[in-house]
């Protein structure tokens, strides 16, 4: 482990605005560690996020940052990667951000399969807006808004992603730091869309799904064939104790960027490309007929 290199990805002089003991600290640490271990330079990495506690993560990272709108990290992340495939692009945010407000983008980003890593801090609650239910909150979860407890079924992002044949689907719990670092590394290295749903305790607003709860209700997959989609789906829909680890991987899928002809014909970055003026002249001429 090149733990000391993680310092490259630390934002100096800024203290995270999270509550003491929040699971987000561990995710931040895991991500810094993963980036360092992959020997990336800060200049190569763009973290795109939405709005929420989780979405603040890039504020505390020494990388390029696109901190956009609530729910809208995936579209700009896709575009950034499409315009400059040399960049390592990570989209990061909370469960409300990515599965609620941005749910439609979640589905369609899987369809496109851009080569980006999708990190979702899943604390099963809306942290920043002070404790309302999220799309992953369990039925019965009481909040000041859901006064009788949540009555809708939670979303199962892992099963959903597998059902859409997402090219990499994993789940982890930030309390298992080492495994989380490994999974994030694999997700970043994976060529294509990679979802990592990260269980993250919110110590302030979720008194049900605590550190202890996650420890007691999760276990790591063993002897699972990540290329078996049916098995992956079965494992993803297990209840009671929830499996962690890589559920599914489909490496051979072409990425969105690979399918774009703009990168097949020309390799120069978008920035330094110029207009084909002769062709434009010709095209205008065709309107004489």
């Amino acid at each position, binding site marked *: 482990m090149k733990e000391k290199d993680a310092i490259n990805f630390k934002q100096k002089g800024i203290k995270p605005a999270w509550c003491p003991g929040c699971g987000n600290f561990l995710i931040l640490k895991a991500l810094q560690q993963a980036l360092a271990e992959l020997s990336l330079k800060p200049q190569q990495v763009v973290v795109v996020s939405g709005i929420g506690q989780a979405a603040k993560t890039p504020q505390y990272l*020494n990388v390029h940052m696109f901190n956009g709108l609530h729910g809208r990290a995936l579209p700009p992340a896709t*575009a950034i990667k499409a315009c400059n495939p040399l960049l390592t692009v990570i989209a990061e945010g909370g469960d409300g951000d990515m599965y609620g407000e941005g749910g439609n983008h979640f589905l369609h980003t899987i369809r496109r399969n851009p080569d980006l890593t999708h990190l979702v801090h899943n604390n099963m609650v809306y942290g920043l807006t002070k404790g309302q239910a999220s799309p992953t909150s369990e039925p019965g979860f009481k909040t000041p808004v859901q006064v009788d407890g949540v009555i809708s079924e939670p979303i199962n992002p892992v099963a959903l992603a597998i059902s859409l044949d997402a090219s990499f689907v994993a789940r982890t719990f930030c309390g298992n730091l080492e495994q989380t670092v490994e999974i994030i590394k694999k997700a970043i290295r994976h060529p294509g869309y990679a979802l990592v749903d990260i269980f993250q305790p919110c110590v302030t607003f979720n008194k049900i799904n605590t550190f202890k709860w996650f420890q007691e209700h999760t276990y790591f997959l063993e002897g699972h064939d990540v290329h078996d989609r049916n098995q992956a789906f079965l494992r993803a829909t297990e209840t009671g104790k929830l499996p962690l680890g890589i559920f599914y991987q489909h490496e051979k899928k072409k990425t969105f960027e690979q399918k774009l002809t703009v990168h097949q014909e020309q390799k120069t970055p978008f920035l330094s490309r110029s207009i084909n003026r002769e062709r434009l002249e010709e095209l205008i001429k065709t309107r004489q007929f």
Partner: protein
Amino acid sequence: MKKVISQITLEQDISIVLCGEAGQGIQTVEQLLTRMLKLSGYYVFATKEYMSRVRGGSNSTQIRVSSKPIQAPVSRIDLLIPLDKEAINHVSSRLGERIIIIGDQEKLDTDKKVINVSFLKMAQEIGKAIYANIIAVGLLLGLLEGDIKAGRVFLKDYFTQKKKEEFVADNIKALERGYQEAKRLIEENLVQVGSFPHLKKSSKVENNLLLNGAEAIGLGAIAGGCNFISSYPMSPSTGVLVFLAQYAHDFNIIVEQAEDEISAINMAIGAWYAGARAMVTTSGGGFSLMTEGLSLAGMIESPLVIHLAQRPGPATGLPTRTEQGDLHLALYAGHGEFPRIILAPGNIEEAYQLMQKAFYWADQFQIPVFILTDQYTMDTYYNIERLSVPQEETVRFIIKTDYDYQRYKLGGKDGLSPRGIPGFGEGLVRVDSDEHDEMGLITEDMSIRNRMVEKRNAKWHQLKKEALIPTLTGTKDYRVLCVGWGSTYYIIKEALDRLDKPDMALLHFQQVYPISETSIDFLKRAKQIISIENNYSGQFSQLLEMQTGISIRSRILKYDGLPFYADELAEEIKDVIEENGGQK
């Protein structure tokens, strides 16, 4: 027969209307006929109105043919080709006494006099019913003494790429059959061509271009260096998306049909961040969904080009029709305070040029720039002389970053801080939709907040200075000044030509926001200002009043979903002047 076309001799042009159901091929007739007539040496104008359905309904296309440049629709119809039972009814309010109707009498049900031409029977004789349209093209070409040779060559080219030889040969037969039929009508004195004395051909126009507003916007985008478009289909804005997709390979453009407009605009902003030149094309409801993204562009100081093709609202409104009803939407969309530019092309050339200007200004000022068009602009074309390709390389306002780069460095001229791109230079590029410090990191420090608000809005100063001056058409010593913006330019111009009053002029705005400070002088000099807009509330005159303090009392407004007609508008202007008796 009487001299049936005497009206046309007065008008110096002929107005042809083809009317029928969707799916009957009116579009093909329009496409072919206008090209053939132009190649024959005429000026042509074409526009269409259609229902929001793929089959059936009543749709019409107007083609005006003239020996002088002609760029506006008129209500008057000289020659009507009804293609189904409903057609005559659909345009009944526009049928004058001298109208010539040519059609398949059997298929029509009318007490109007119809000159019978059995298009369908003739087509079946050649081989297939679908040739009926080409026979109609031949007939019209013949009546207008168009060049049948040029017609043949054009038709061959038009079909050869897609169709079998036999099909092409039959089509040429159909064209010739129609042409002969025209000669018959003339010989039998059913239609008098001798009454087109003013319709002279000129070899000058042969090389003119024919392209509609959607194509002009698309070409302008390419010329402006656009290499990314993400959008969601919505009439009437889709034509631009389709156009850029057609030429995406030639010009290396990423074209993405997004899952919704929210995604589309956020992608476009992401693309600019990564060094591309991106745009979205959208309409009414689609743009409503984009407004949060617009505000993001304002906050992170991202360039952005938004083509907003207006259609009548609210909500789904009239999907395939025209209106200038979204000016205030573009003006006020997006929460918070940030600068923007709104451009509104008045013709094909302006659409092409303003699109380039939009990319340039968006990049230079790091702001969203709107191009506001409408269905009428998208679907209309007429002869234009040329579109010139930019001579210089596209100017980019991007810097290579240093290690200590700060995206929102304060203290730059007019609020501008150099824009870096991730991966270009050693710096880190941070943009944040939260209020941010110079680094781009979230802050709630109130003094920074103040300075950032002032930084963003300091751009106004330069934007106002560079605003395009409205164009004055007509006398400088006007008493009555008609004011228009965007697509109404040529329609108002023709209306004024028709009135031919020495003391009237037209002030056309191709930039509607911010308006040029010179506007006030133009307005002050008028005794009466008449604002003419395709909407209910006179949105632009409200804006002008707010910005200049001059009140505009005379308004001519139209909001039925159709563009103004030059002939009707002339009458309305006359009425308004008379009613008003010289008041502002």
